[in-house]
């Protein structure tokens, strides 16, 4: 199937601003699904609220556009009811780790078989450029005219500590790597977290004078490096990208099946 067959073309052009990285993530995701040869009917995409969450409107899978921060909770319900379906849960940085932070760590702890995609533009795009828990220090935002003092979460470290069994990071510069990682994350049995550094030229870029969308994408090239590279040893400030964790652990739905079997056994 061609990439465009996975899109609801009638809703394009999408509502994202010119140069918004979320469109690149959408492209990477549908290309990954095309590579895996999945049928549209076996995929359920669940999203919350945010510019990023609008992604579910453009893909021709089963889609649920739910409430801010709770996409993983809705996805948990779908997955437990229909474990044979592939769940993909794209979230903004605010969606996933501000209001949705608790759902995020507990979904990871349970090792539910689904893919959480954090579209991290380090800002609340939809609501006008407030800073988020992923903005980090020294960032200008609508709510930080004199710059942020808050430290940011490291999504990878957080996901690892919470128990995710697949953890990776890529960027909208590294589109081929992004596609490859998303494909591996979807194939992985267990809770997969993929952070994609994405650009919001309208708020993050403008407020922080990084330049246009292409300049922001180039920033990702200049400030990231493959895991364990020599460059990282020389410049610890570089952000690593690649696959950090890929391991097998008991998956929640399968364990739940055992509980159901135990309960049935006792009753009969």
């Amino acid at each position, binding site marked *: 199937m061609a990439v465009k067959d996975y899109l609801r073309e009638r809703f*394009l*052009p999408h509502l994202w601003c010119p*140069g918004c*990285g979320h469109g690149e993530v*959408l*492209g990477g995701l549908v290309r990954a699904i095309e590579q895996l040869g999945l049928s549209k009917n076996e995929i359920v995409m669940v999203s919350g609220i945010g510019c990023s969450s609008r992604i579910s409107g453009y893909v021709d899978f089963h889609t649920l556009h739910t409430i801010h921060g709770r996409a993983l909770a809705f996805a948990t319900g779908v997955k437990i009811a229909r474990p044979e379906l592939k769940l993909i849960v794209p979230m903004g940085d605010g969606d996933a780790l501000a209001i949705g932070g608790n759902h995020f760590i507990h979904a990871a702890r349970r090792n539910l078989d689904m893919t959480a995609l954090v579209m991290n533009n380090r800002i609340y795009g939809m609501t006008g450029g407030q800073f988020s828990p992923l903005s980090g220090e020294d960032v200008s935002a609508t709510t930080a005219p004199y710059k942020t003092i808050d430290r940011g979460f490291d999504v990878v470290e957080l996901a690892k500590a919470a128990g995710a069994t697949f953890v990776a990071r890529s960027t909208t510069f590294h589109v*081929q790597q992004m596609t490859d990682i998303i494909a591996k994350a979807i194939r992985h049995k267990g809770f997969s977290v993929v952070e994609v550094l994405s650009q919001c030229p309208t708020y993050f870029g403008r407020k922080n004078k990084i330049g*246009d969308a292409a*300049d922001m994408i180039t920033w990702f090239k200049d400030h990231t490096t493959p895991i364990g590279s020599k460059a990282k040893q020389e410049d610890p400030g570089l952000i690593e990208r690649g696959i950090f964790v890929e391991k097998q652990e008991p998956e929640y739905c399968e364990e739940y099946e055992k509980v159901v079997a135990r309960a049935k056994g006792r009753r009969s």
Partner: protein
Amino acid sequence: MAKPKLKQHHINRDWCKGCGICVELCPKKVLALDEQDKVTVVRPQDCICCRLCELRCPDFAIEVETQE
């Protein structure tokens, strides 16, 4: 494997938002924005068919077709 040769770029002017990503990040400076801020091909002979324009376009507005 033989190097792919360009047949043509397919541009969807209705979807292109003129963001300039493909123009600025093309390694061979094949593309430009026209007076209506839509992408256009100015140096097709220099295209190396890397497809990065296609893969990085947030709007699915440019595709690279190669010769078989």
